[in-house]
């Protein structure tokens, strides 16, 4: 007997049922038989036996229960019973399922994003030890970590001793011709060991070796999978073939695997081929470094070690390296540093919503448990055990939670698509990974299951406790009405509501702070007018527009501008080298004539921008002092420059900069430019980012291969993309276009993370508010029903209806106030966590906190009003009679 029999009994449920019925029947028959032998009549005997025996159904049930194998049979019965019970209160079931679906759905959706972005294992060998190394120059006014010099790289590689391997790399965009229409490719020149640090091997072909990675080495290239599939049609014979990059023949050495995407969007990899002399170049910073830490060494340790080495370099070379700070960033942070905190904040907010939903459900469940006193009593009388009842109610919780969970998964699945808005794709230099899709996969479903079970447990605990106590009370034969069990249950419901209100307040304040930050960021203004402005960027291929022939570049720019302006619907056009908001920029050092030369020999740094005379007008950037550039400022005439407000305020706080001269060369080889005007600031790095000091010169006087044309159109800029491309190709038909995008879109994308986060958190807060409203209403309504008699007595004894109204509202207000106070404490303690999403808004903003509290109290009062009115409308006679 034992387990085997139990399992067999599972299958033979009906048979067992019949057997037990037969056994019980035979008992009765034997009793009847004996009674008849003792002299009773058959009928009397049967009646007596039945009476003695009790309720056969109940006995059968309890007997069956003893037989119930492994509890599974019982669970299935419980489920069916639960479903039947819930069908009798459809309103309750639907409310709970909807509430849980929203809560679980929100959490699942955000978790799927977190999993896809933050938790997805990096496809590199031992990725926890891979780091990127950057240099920041706070002494030069540049605190953002940026590329390093090859000289620094050489020293660090030799001396730092904390890395197993270190590899240099740099941007190397090239133009592909001869394979379909000319294409502008994002390229990356990497050393031979770069890819081996990542532990990646080509899917086809091979990597180049250290010997091949030298200046004058063979021109070889690795293609990305995407490039191979699209431009080269997935040619299986591509390895060994030659392609033309920047006019030169390169041999394809291999194709990288499909999933490989570091750095993001790179299409070709070429040998870095750094010359030996590069290792003594400390002034040009263009090297991006990837390294693998030695086992047991942390990024922080490596950073400290590198800074010690760099301090020595700075002492030996103060003119280039003074004040350099080295930053070591783990690869993971490199890829998702800017989205990590926002995502986690969203997950926290969604979690709060789920907790509120559970509190709501628990409250509703408590009320329902109280109403089911009679049912519980009857079931106990029929022989149900306490464990059985507990199991029954737990099952009911699960029966509600599981459809809620499934609904949640559906909602999440529908919602992940809109979550993609958190990941803008057109802004360079943001540390946000490229995310094509957010799948709802096994891990996400497991999370949803976990959330469902947690919800069931949390929302079922309180009613369960209630039922257990009711079971005990019934066993002790106490009256179930108006007992201590009732009062404790009320306290519990009030506690649930207080919890709900507190959590809602925390969400409301968070939403308030985040939305206010978003508003501030939106209104921060860019410094230029992005509406009706098209940006079209090109990179002049160096083989056809060499730096030895600046006239060709100038000619090109001028002709394109003329062609653009000639198109219908165009108001004006201008060009620059580094487009604002594109994430690209360059810098230069400068000295002011007449000012004391700094002890280090090299002056501070400012952003270096080149523009055409029409640029400021096209962009609607006002010139604040002096004059803008004109056509007269060209090669041969006096070298002129403009500066921006930030520059003027920082370096010329008390004098007029117009007329002063800047040396953009060096002490030995000066390169003087006269300042002719001051332009208003532009938020080139985003509305919520600080402005840099900027120096402007004309493209005429400093031709540059990267050119962004800005066209101010009369109508929608997006409609002008085709005409703009035509204009460009009318001047140079072989020129690939890097990016053509309305500035409005670019401007909107820089706010993408903020916008999406604000919308989501505001949505969660709204949901929380609705749930809190329902919660308060439920508690108040139930309290009024319970206190009917008391209210009736009060009214009968002369209380006014207004008094009753005030009494009920007062109790609701009391709950709300306690909840708000607790919530305020919680919000104060936790709002610092939001700082990565805040902009020009302090984490403890009294106005927002007060507004949130007021809103919540208002909602609570409104929710309590209806029950209060019903209480005031109670007819005392009816209430007392019903007692």
């Amino acid at each position, binding site marked *: *007997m034992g387990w085997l029999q139990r399992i067999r009994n599972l299958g033979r449920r009906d048979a067992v049922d019949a057997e037990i019925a037969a056994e*019980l029947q*035979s008992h009765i028959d*034997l009793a009847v038989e*004996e009674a008849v032998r003792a002299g009773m009549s058959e009928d009397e005997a049967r009646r007596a036996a039945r009476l003695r025996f009790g309720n056969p159904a109940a*006995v059968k049930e309890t*007997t069956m229960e003893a037989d119930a194998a492994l509890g599974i049979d019982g669970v299935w019965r419980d489920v069916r019973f639960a479903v039947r019970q819930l069908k009798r209160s459809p309103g309750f079931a639907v409310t709970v399922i909807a509430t849980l679906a929203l809560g679980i759905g929100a959490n699942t959706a955000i978790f799927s994003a977190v999993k896809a972005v933050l938790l997805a294992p990096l496809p590199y060998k031992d990725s926890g030890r891979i780091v990127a190394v950057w240099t920041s120059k706070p002494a030069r006014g540049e605190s953002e970590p940026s590329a390093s010099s090859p000289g620094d790289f050489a020293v660090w590689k030799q001396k730092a001793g904390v890395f197993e391997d270190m590899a240099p790399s740099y941007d190397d965009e090239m133009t592909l011709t001869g394979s379909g229409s000319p294409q502008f490719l994002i390229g990356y020149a990497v050393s031979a060991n770069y890819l081996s640090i990542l532990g990646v091997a080509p899917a086809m072909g091979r990597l180049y070796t250290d010997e091949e990675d030298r200046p004058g080495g063979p021109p070889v290239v690795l293609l990305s999978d995407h490039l191979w599939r699209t431009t080269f049609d997935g040619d299986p014979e591509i390895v060994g073939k030659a392609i033309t990059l920047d006019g030169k023949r390169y041999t394809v050495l291999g194709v990288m695997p499909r999933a490989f995407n570091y750095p993001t969007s790179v299409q070709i990899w070429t040998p870095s081929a750094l010359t030996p002399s590069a290792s003594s170049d400390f002034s040009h910073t263009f090297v991006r470094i990837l390294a693998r830490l030695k086992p047991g060494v942390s990024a922080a340790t490596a950073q400290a070690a590198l800074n010690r080495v760099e301090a020595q370099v700075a002492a030996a070379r103060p003119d280039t390296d003074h004040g350099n700070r080295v930053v070591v960033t783990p690869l993971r942070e490199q890829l998702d540093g800017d989205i990590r905190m926002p995502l986690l904040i969203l997950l926290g907010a969604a979690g709060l919503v789920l907790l509120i939903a559970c509190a709501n459900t628990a409250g509703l469940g408590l009320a329902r448990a109280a109403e089911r006193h009679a049912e519980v009593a009857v079931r106990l009388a029929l022989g149900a055990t306490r464990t059985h009842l507990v199991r029954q109610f737990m099952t009911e919780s699960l029966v509600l939670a599981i459809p809620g969970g499934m609904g949640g998964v559906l909602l999440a699945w529908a919602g992940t698509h809109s979550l993609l808005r958190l990941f803008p794709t057109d802004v360079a230099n943001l540390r946000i990974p490229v995310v094509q899709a957010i799948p709802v996969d096994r891990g996400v479903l497991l999370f949803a299951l976990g959330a469902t079970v947690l919800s069931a447990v949390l929302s079922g605990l309180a009613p369960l406790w209630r039922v257990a106590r009711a079971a005990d009370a019934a066993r002790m034969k106490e009256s179930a009405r108006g007992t201590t069990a009732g009062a404790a249950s009320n306290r519990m419901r009030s506690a649930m509501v207080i919890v709900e209100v507190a959590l809602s307040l925390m969400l409301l304040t968070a939403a308030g702070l985040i939305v206010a930050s978003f508003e501030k960021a939106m209104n921060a203004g860019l410094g230029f007018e992005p509406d009706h402005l098209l940006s079209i960027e090109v990179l002049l291929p160096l083989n056809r527009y060499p730096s030895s022939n600046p006239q060709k570049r100038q000619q090109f720019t001028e002709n394109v501008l003329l062609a653009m302006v000639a198109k219908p619907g165009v108001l004006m056009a201008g060009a620059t080298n580094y487009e604002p908001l594109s994430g690209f920029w360059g810098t230069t050092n400068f000295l002011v004539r007449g000012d004391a030369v700094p002890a280090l020999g090299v002056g501070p740094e400012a952003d270096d921008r080149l523009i055409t005379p029409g640029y400021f007008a096209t962009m609607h950037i006002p010139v604040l002092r002096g004059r803008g550039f004109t056509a007269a400022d060209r090669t041969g005439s006096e070298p002129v420059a403009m500066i921006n407000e930030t520059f003027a305020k920082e370096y010329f706080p008390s004098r007029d900069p117009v007329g002063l001269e800047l040396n953009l060369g060096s002490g030995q080889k000066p390169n003087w430019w006269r300042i002719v005007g001051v332009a208003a600031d532009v938020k080139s790095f985003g509305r919520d980012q600080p402005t840099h000091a900027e120096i402007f010169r004309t493209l005429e006087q400093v031709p540059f291969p990267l050119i962004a044309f800005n066209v101010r159109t009369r109508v929608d800029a997006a409609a002008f993309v085709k005409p703009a491309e035509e204009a460009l190709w009318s001047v140079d038909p072989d020129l690939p276009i890097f990016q053509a995008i309305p500035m409005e879109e670019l401007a909107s994308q820089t706010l993408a993370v903020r916008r999406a986060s604000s919308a989501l958190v505001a949505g969660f807060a709204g949901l929380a508010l609705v749930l809190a409203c329902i919660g308060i209403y439920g508690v108040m309504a139930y309290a009024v029903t319970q206190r009917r008699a008391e209210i009736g007595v009060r009214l009968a004894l002369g209380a006014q209806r207004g008094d009753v109204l005030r009494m009920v509202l007062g109790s609701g207000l009391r709950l709300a106030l306690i909840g708000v106070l607790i919530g305020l404490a919680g919000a104060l303690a936790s709002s610092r966590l939001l700082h990565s999403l805040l902009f020009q808004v302090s984490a403890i903003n009294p106005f927002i906190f007060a507004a949130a509290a007021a809103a919540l109290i208002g909602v609570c009062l409104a929710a309590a009003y209806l029950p209060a009115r019903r209480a005031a409308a109670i007819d005392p006679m009816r209430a007392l009679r019903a007692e």
Partner: protein
Amino acid sequence: MAKNDLQGTLDLLVLKTLAQMGRLHGYGIVQHIHRASDDLLRVEEGSLYPALHRMEQSGWIGSEWALTETGRKAKYYKLTVAGKKRLEAAEKDFEELVRGVRAMLRYA
């Protein structure tokens, strides 16, 4: 007294009955307990049958259908080896319980 103690006592009575009488059906067990206790103990059928099935699940008694002397079909129970051991332990527990209660009642 908590439910468990009552349940334990019922188990004890049933096991002892089967030890004394060998094979017996449910009705017979009820009658035997009633007689052997000088009419002092009455077992509720509603408690007996769940207890019988539970003890069978636990492996202390075995069952089989058979005919009574009068030719009726009934389910007969008998003690198993494990049941005998269980009976000894239950008897000891009960003695202890009784001694403890008596000592408490005599305490001045």
